[in-house]
């Protein structure tokens, strides 16, 4: 019996290892296997016809999000690039938004298997640039033909200090959207949306409808809670001349400056004049979508979705408001080069390809993404003069999340503060001073 033990153990171990070590590539579904067979045949034929090529540089590209239409776009872009650059092979990967993506990237960087090219958000720069996980692109941008044609603000948003780290691909500006029909009902000119704070407040008051103490229709659809409250405050403090919630360069807290407090007081005035309370975590609750608010802030996707729902055909976009200056919030998706990649030149070639005018226009045609090159501006605006000019303008004057490692603490503190303001727990000055104190504590702990 003992003689049996050793072979039995060996057999079990071998079986376990062999069964476990089966590579995914060897177990593809039938269509994939057939595709591979066809690909191999084509490659073999090419090898016979052409001289032997040098080994390809293999890059991995990880993008945030899993939407099928964007996936189709990226896969076709990668294919087009590889066709034009036969010496480079790109493996496309994707991962969902939020913590999932952060986990994936953190694991990759911690284990030395990080992707070479990363498509991620502006906020990620705050933590990843100081860690050296994103490479500085200044050297490449200096010799880049598209540098002067690229929208200046998009380059600014992709920079930390004076150094460029990200090339913008997916802009996400917050645009003032209004309901023309409700404007007409309130005796307002549907083609003359508000252009400044005074007009906004005046229109808001005219558009509010109450039944007793209940607000049944509001003017400006302002949320009263949720994690996007900071976007709303950002828009108004920047319109009032404040740089951002915090100064990225000096780490000075700006959310409780007199101008910021004035902006919060203005939002409180709007709320006091009558709003329908909703949670900004759930954009579906936005009363604008159901025709119960005449104005709100939304992105281009919101506009598209609302224009297919209850307020279809009744809504339009307006230029960002001006107070001290014209401003809005503008999120952005960027292309980053991994700080660890040994193939920097090849990575830049791909980023340059994605940022080319042709590719930008293809992105617009397939996904409706605004092209961010001056040379495409006229053509883009001509496609839809009513909206596209406003979108371009909003991106051009937009400021995004502060690119600091403690950005999440800033958002949390400001969201809490604004919620306290909206529910009359604290006045704007007290609430924002409390928030500033919390942010300062976080900065001191860094």
């Amino acid at each position, binding site marked *: 019996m003992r003689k049996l033990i050793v072979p039995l153990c060996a057999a079990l171990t071998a079986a376990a290892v062999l069964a476990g070590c089966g590579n995914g590539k060897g177990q593809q579904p039938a269509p994939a296997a057939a595709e591979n067979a066809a690909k191999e045949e084509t490659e073999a034929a090419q090898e016979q016809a052409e001289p032997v090529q040098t080994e390809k540089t293999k890059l991995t590209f990880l993008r945030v999000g899993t939407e099928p239409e964007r996936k189709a776009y990226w896969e076709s872009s990668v294919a087009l690039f590889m066709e034009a650059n036969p010496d480079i092979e790109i493996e496309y990967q994707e991962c969902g938004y939020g913590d999932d993506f952060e986990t994936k990237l953190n*694991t990759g960087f911690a284990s030395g298997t990080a992707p070479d090219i990363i498509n991620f958000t502006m906020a990620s720069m705050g933590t990843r640039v100081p860690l050296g996980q994103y490479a500085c692109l200044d050297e490449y941008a200096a010799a880049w033909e598209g540098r002067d044609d690229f929208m200046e603000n998009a380059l600014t948003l992709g920079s930390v200090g004076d150094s460029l780290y990200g090339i913008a691909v997916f802009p996400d500006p917050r645009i003032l959207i209004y309901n023309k029909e409700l404007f007409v009902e309130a005796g307002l000119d549907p083609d003359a949306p508000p252009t400044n704070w005074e007009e906004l407040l005046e229109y808001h008051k005219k558009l509010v409808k109450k039944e007793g103490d209940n607000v049944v229709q509001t003017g400006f659809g302002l949320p009263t809670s949720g994690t996007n409250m900071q976007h709303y405050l950002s828009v108004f403090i920047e319109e009032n001349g404040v740089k951002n919630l915090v100064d990225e360069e000096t780490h000075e807290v700006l959310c409780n400056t007199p101008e910021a407090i004035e902006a919060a007081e203005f939002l409180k005035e709007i709320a006091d004049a009558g709003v329908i309370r909703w949670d900004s975590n759930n954009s579906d609750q936005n009363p604008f979508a159901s025709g119960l608010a005449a104005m709100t802030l939304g992105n281009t996707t919101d506009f598209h979705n609302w224009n297919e729902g209850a307020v279809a055909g009744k809504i339009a976009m307006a230029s960002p408001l001006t107070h001290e200056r014209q401003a809005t919030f503008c999120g952005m998706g960027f292309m980053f080069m991994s700080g660890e990649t040994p193939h920097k030149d090849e990575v830049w070639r791909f980023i340059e390809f994605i940022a080319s005018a042709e590719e930008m226009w293809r992105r617009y045609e397939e996904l409706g993404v605004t092209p961010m090159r001056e040379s495409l501006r006229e053509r883009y605006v001509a496609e839809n003069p009513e909206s596209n000019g406003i979108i371009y303008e909003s991106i051009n004057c937009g400021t995004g999340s502060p690119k600091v490692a403690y950005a999440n603490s800033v958002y949390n503190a400001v969201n809490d503060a604004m919620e306290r303001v909206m529910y009359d727990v604290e006045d704007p000055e007290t609430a924002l001073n409390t928030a500033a104190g919390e942010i300062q504590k976080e900065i001191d702990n860094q």
Partner: protein
Amino acid sequence: MKREKRNQIIWALGMSLASLVMLIPVIMMFMTSMKTMEEIKSPVFHLLPATFSFRNYTDAMSNGIWPVYFRNSLMITGAAVLFSLLFNSIAGYAFARLNFRGAKIMFLFLMMGLMMPPQVTMLPTFLIMAKFPLMGGNDLFGSGGTGLVNTYAGLVIPLVSGSYGVFLCKQFYENFPRSLDEAAMIDGAGKWRTYFTIYLPNSKAILATLGLLKAVSVWNDYMWPLVMTNSETMKTVQLALTMFKTDSGVMWNQMMAAAVLVALPMFVLFLCAQKYFIQGIVTSGLK
């Protein structure tokens, strides 16, 4: 007698209510899977959909390559359950019945594994898999390639061992009468034979319990496949569910439809193994 009956009725009502509370998320999931997005977004909540339609199911399954995702999950779960049952029961038997030097210390270390959150070991495990020698383009020293990243082996190997399974088996085997071992020894059976001919055939209850717990945890695991896979053809069903979450919101109707289908194999498995599962819990003394 009357009082006993009354207590029974109260007990039954209480348990029914508790069951209903447990079932609410499942009911909500099923009902949402039948609704349109307009119904879901509606400010007025209705539990029942306006019309029962399986449209969301067909729409959800037409996104992505679901047969491949299900196949991957089934393969990974099957392999992990099979190998973990084998290794855990052998180790449990060894700790319960073999007297060897260092057994107590080894068991103590094993128990420490129970207290270790999986997040702590995730990165070291990932590194071991990524630096696996002679695999995925790696050289003998584990560099140059991707090791077992994005392979079934990389997904399964770290899941086959587990303190919990060994502990469960040890508890179970300790309840076996010693006379069984003695009888086997008198008949000339060695330790392996005793295990394979006496212990293993009498372990249905504990293996079913362990198998079910393992299957559910591997099937539902999200984090490990997330970091270990990077291609569409290696995705598991849990990863695939994220495709309904976009930057502009969540397609709840399709996500819930897909979630119902993803949960179905585990429901069926539990119904099949329910009898053994309860036995296993009782006999291993777990609460």
